[in-house]
């Protein structure tokens, strides 16, 4: 009878005992981010997504750095982008990223909004993590606004740009913010990022993460795009204080400067020249002709001649090789300084020229450099501005800058041929703004009135 009592009691207990512990099963491989480690992994995923985006590669196709190899099967996927045809595109055409950018923002926003509550790490580690999150949000919004909205200038400030996402809310009706609002957000995020930033320079094997030097460099880039020349100069100078090194290409076994662990690569985050674009294009004649093929060492560093069609050149950088990831180099800082110093009211043209020469001395063969330096010294302000623009085209070739620079530098007329037909992008053509992807508009009608 005693046994029966025990049975009865245990049975009653079963009814009353809380089942929460029994039901608390932690699934393998699934996690709700709570610790510093989790948030770091969430950020790593965001960096990884950023690294795999295709928009900058596609924007290059839209620009003037490439001609399409029409005999390639993949040509079809790129043709409409190449000839700026945005209406009734081929179904197979590659699509500019939209959702992926916002997917990065989900991770980043969650880190910004919740990551501070992770208490299992040193304050410095958490500050560094938050700093990176702010900067990555700024970086993402900066790319979005440059792809899908008009340029930043006094006339455009109230034009509609992209919707800003700063929190996670499935019920929110996303509406487009103005160019002014977007840049305000970018500037504020950069400032917060700089405030919290701890690491001066990242170790080369985690060089995809933001550091003080790349944050300052990025601030310089943003202000350059906002035509805030003095701010651009100041941030670029601050960055150069931390790292001013350049790869000297004149040395016999110089490393390619775009490689993630070169002395001048300060942010190895993106693949801006992807495999598909690489396989379907030649380098445009315009870009090839801009170089002195023998005396400019960058030419042989960046390009190689096609073995099939002579006089056609293929990219050597980019592709799927992880070592070719590059988002920012000190070379860009020199170019920013050269441009900003020239364009600033209080600018110093001599100093500006010095920055460009400091860069070129590491890029050109010695005798050719001497001639170039003399020519630069002799240049008027206007000529020098053109020179800097040309040097940006060469130095930053196939690294995701050219389309943005074309927009920034007066949206010039571009001409292309495909299948014997000629296509023109007129000066100031509205197609300098990329339409929102069809899928994005279908899911959010607020994006319609572009």
């Amino acid at each position: 009878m005693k046994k029966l009592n025990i049975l009865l009691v245990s049975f009653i207990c079963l009814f009353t005992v809380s089942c929460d512990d029994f039901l608390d099963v932690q699934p393998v491989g699934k996690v709700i981010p709570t610790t510093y480690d989790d948030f770091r992994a969430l950020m790593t995923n965001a960096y990884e997504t950023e690294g795999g985006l295709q928009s900058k590669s596609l924007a290059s196709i839209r620009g003037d750095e490439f001609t399409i190899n029409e005999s390639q099967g993949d040509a079809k996927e790129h043709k409409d982008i190449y000839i700026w045809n945005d209406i009734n595109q081929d179904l197979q055409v590659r699509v500019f990223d939209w959702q992926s950018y916002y997917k990065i923002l989900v991770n980043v926003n969650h880190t910004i909004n919740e990551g501070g509550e992770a208490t299992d790490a040193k304050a410095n580690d958490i500050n560094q993590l938050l700093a990176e999150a702010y900067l990555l949000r700024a970086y993402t919004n900066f790319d979005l606004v440059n792809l899908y909205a008009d340029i930043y200038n006094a006339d455009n400030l109230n034009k509609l740009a992209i919707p800003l996402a700063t929190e996670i809310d499935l019920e929110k009706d996303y509406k487009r913010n103005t160019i002014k609002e977007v840049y305000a957000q970018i500037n504020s995020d950069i400032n917060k990022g700089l405030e919290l930033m701890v690491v001066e320079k990242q170790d080369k094997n985690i060089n995809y993460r933001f550091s003080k030097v790349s944050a300052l460099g990025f601030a310089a880039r943003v202000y350059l795009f906002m035509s805030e020349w003095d701010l651009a100069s100041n941030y670029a100078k601050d960055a150069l204080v931390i790292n001013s090194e350049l790869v000297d290409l004149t040395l016999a076994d110089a490393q390619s400067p775009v490689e993630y662990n070169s002395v001048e690569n300060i942010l190895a985050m993106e693949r801006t020249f992807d495999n598909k674009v690489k396989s379907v294009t030649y380098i445009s004649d315009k870009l090839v002709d801009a170089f002195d093929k023998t005396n400019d060492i960058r030419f042989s560093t960046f390009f190689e001649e096609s073995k099939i069609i002579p006089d056609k050149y293929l990219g050597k950088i980019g592709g799927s090789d992880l070592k070719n990831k590059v988002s920012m180099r000190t070379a860009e800082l020199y170019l920013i300084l050269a441009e900003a110093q020239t364009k600033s009211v209080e600018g110093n043209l001599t100093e500006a020229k010095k920055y460009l020469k400091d860069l070129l001395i590491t890029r050109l063969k010695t005798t050719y450099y001497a001639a170039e330096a003399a020519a630069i010294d002799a240049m008027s302000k206007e000529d020098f501005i053109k020179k800097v623009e040309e040097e940006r085209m060469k130095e930053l070739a196939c690294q995701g800058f050219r389309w943005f620079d074309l927009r920034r530098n007066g949206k010039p007329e571009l001409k292309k041929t495909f299948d014997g037909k000629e296509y023109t992008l007129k000066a100031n053509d509205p197609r300098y703004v990329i339409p929102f992807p069809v899928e994005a508009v279908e899911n959010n009608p607020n994006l319609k009135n572009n």
Partner: protein
Amino acid sequence: MKKIGLLLLVLLPFCLFAQDLREIKGKVIDKTTGEPLPGASVYIDKSTIAAKTGEEGMIQSFSLGTTTDIDGQFTLKIPKDLHVVFCSFISFETKKVNVKGKNYVIIELSDAAEALSEVVVTGYQTIEKRKLTSSVARVKTDNIIQGGVSSIDQMLGGQLAGVQTTTVNGAPGAPAKIRIRGTASLSGSQDPLWVLDGMPLEGTDLPDMSERNIDQLVNSSIAGLNPNDIEDITILKDAAATAIYGARAANGVIVITTKKGKKGKMTVSLNSNTSFVMKPDFDKLNLMNSDDKVDFELGMAKWNDLDDYRSDKGAVSRILNKYSQLDAYRAGGFSSISQNAQNEINALRSINTNWGDELYQTAFNQDHSLSISGGTDNANYYFSAGYYDENGATIGTGMERLNLTMKTDYQILDNLNVGASIYYSNKTQESYLTGTDSFTNPSRYSRTANPYQQIRDTEGNFIYDPEIDGYSARNIPFNYIEERENTSNDLISKNFNAVFDVKWNILKNLKLTSQLGIQTTNSNAEQYAGINSYYARKEREKSRYSKDGDFVYFVPEGGVIKNWNTQDSQWNWKNMLEYNLNINNIHEIDFMVGNELRHTESTRIYSAGYGYDKQTLTTQPLIYRDAYDAKYYPLYSRSFLENAYASFFGTLAYTYNKKYTFFGSVRMDGSDLFGVDPKYKYLPLWAASGSWRAKEEPWLQDIEFLSDLKFRASYGLQGNIDKGTSPYLVGLVFYESLLPNINEKTINIETPPNNKLRWEKTATWNGGFDLGLFKNIIRISTDFYHRKSTDLIGLKAIQLENGFLTTSLNWASVTNKGFELNLITRNVYTENFKWQTTFNISKNISNVDRIQIKNNEIYPSREGHAVNAVFAYKTAGLDEQGYIQFEKDGEILSASEFFESEWGMCNLTEEERRGLFTYIGSTDPEFTGGLINKFTYKNFTLNVSCAFNINQLVKEQPFYGVENTDRGMNHTIQMNQVWTPDNTSGTYPRMISSSTEGYSRYSDYAIMSPGFVMQNDVFRDLDIWYKEMSYLRVSSIRLGYKLPSSLMKKWGISSAKINVESRNPFVIATNYDGYFDPETYGSIYAQPIPKSFTLGLNITF
């Protein structure tokens, strides 16, 4: 304690003999047939004696009873003042017999199926049938068992109204697809829940068995059970019946009750079947013979516009090219080509490899089981062992199973009963290996291999099929027979189930039961390909890359072996407290509360070895180039999944005056809710139902012809929650390289956090009646139901600014409604000849009330149509150039007009493209059902079982491609109905290329070319491939002969039966030319459904 027990045993007889005894004799017979029933138990109820002795507790282990002999006779000594004895027999109703003042009694037992006091086992409760309020169907295994069939699910076809059973593949051990009352879920599982003696089984959901997966060997836990161990099967259909099972029961519940020992002397039963599986009729496929094939290839060679697609394939092309005679042939016909070429081509006509003989066989199967059962007052037992060995009609397929079952029940105390059951099986399934390419599937290969293709040359060496391309245009030798000899694909499963029960009658009306069920399944799938196989060659070829100007492989030469080891286990602990109250036989109350805990674990391990040598059991290393290779050639992977569930439930039944019954049940399911909103922790489900036994009303009592009438109605609410969606941000952990030489942890969020998720709700109405007419000569049972599922979780597109394309939202809604009719008639009933017919038919109409599709979806939304809706392009015959024409708004249009396309461009939006489709019907049959006739003549019985499907839309596999007909493959003789410039009476569209008709029809060609303009394959989506199919399959004809008992008695055998059975002898169906069976119509991968003859013997000692 032990000593006291012994003492009791010694003393007991004295207790009894202390009383006066008398002897009664009698005979037990079957009430319906009048046959004597040997082996029936006649006994005194313990409590009767206990009451008589007035010393409760002293008599508890006392046993007094006997069993009837071969003639149904018995003799029993009983206390003089005892007036009641009991009589029971397997599958008959237990009867209480008044023996007051009688020395000889004839006890008539009625078949339990016909008895009103019959009980229905729901897995939780045992409900008297008269109190039943819900829609429940029951079938006894004895009535449906078929010889040479491995598993109970395959025997259900056509047996029960509302239960649709489909054989998707005729492979040995292939599970049957079962749908109870249509398809309720749009995305989740649609398979019913199986329950074994109260324990819900895991591992019964079938994987997707469509084309690509059809060769996958599946271990369903049902297939581990020996059908001979199963007593009966109860199917719970409506919400009132299934609500007690919670969310898992949304697709219906199938409750298996196994056999148990009966009180009485030991019974030994031997069941033995030997079957011959017929070789399938290969001619049914209507394939071309060598003569036809050569003519076909010559026909193809003629048209230079068809040179784009594999024009170098086929022996004729090869010969013409070898002698450079193609131009000559095109210019002047066959007679103008060189004599050598003519001779070689003509030689092909005389070779006719019979692929049917190479791939299929007549097989020999056996199936034996032996059971030993019996019992005393205090214990009963049932042991069985079974051996099943099936060889498939497809060479190289088979299944072997060994079963052991042990069941015992002990009455430990007067009010305490414990039981233990153990089921063990070891099953080996064997099949062919098709992993690399679908053409290595025998069904498919037999259809496409050229009839002039030889297997071996005169020296016995394999001849490789030159039509097989290999990999990246690199030839890899393939020979079907060599492949079979050098590859294997096996699945070995060990299933272990154990159920422990405790029943404790705390008070007279209060009962506590506790059941612990344990299930473990260990299955090991092994795929092996030897060095001399296409499979192994291809695995190696895929790893080729160039290095320093040379080709190298990172997969070593040799065999390939892959193992998938799966270990699933669950335990399920269920406790129930039941209280019954009967007030003056007018108010009957049954109340039950209980809880259930369940825990499941699943571990999967994959391992692979390359360069494998079967003799030495050694493998060789893979020399990967980079992480990418390693990712695609994994050597080991492991996954682990764990879930826990806790549930609480209760039922209340009230019966008034034995006429009106009301029943209600509630259940709350909780499960491990990682990341799920705590407010959804417990899922409430409830059902309410009622029944009215109208026949019991005084005003119906006198109506003679009405023998039974009962009405039932129920309403229930079921629910489900999507565990994949969370209000929190839940991520999956990966390891990735962002830069060289470093691998870091990343967390990827796969679904957006969502705190707006609600229950999926399914509300079911059920109404029905059971009617018996003319002394139950006709019995009708009908149910009508309406099942509406709302807030079904579906993917809904969201603004991409959320970072995600779609999220799970309570969005879709589906309605299923239908009826079921079950009719049993006793057509002839004389002493020597009896004929009974069971007929059932059911109809289910489904409708998708609300659903959202993706913007880039190819096919139209199913909203407003059946769940399994089919959309196709409406065609209107061929034009004078043999191109297919379409119909839109009564107009007849060419492809380019219909798709508004010009020069390979189509300006229609995705939505407009979807609008071109027409809804043409559903792949669900309009009616399904079965017809079973049972004849008895003296010692002979004849059972004829049929299952039917009426008006089901089926799709024929297009037998050619309009722009990609492969001349290197064999085709059906339907090819002669294809339009060609020489055969303008052909009804199927001509084969085309861009240059056909001198490029003038380029736009039409572009539309028909898959992926060129249209993303889908327009040709395959034409309405010409669909048709309505109806069939009646005679699934079994079984003739049994029961040997005369007088003869058997001499040998000490209590009964012996011989059965001859023919399974699937024939089908009456709409034309299904080109396929083996109407069930697998359109599938060129399915194995034929076996036809077999079985000789069976059943002996009981």
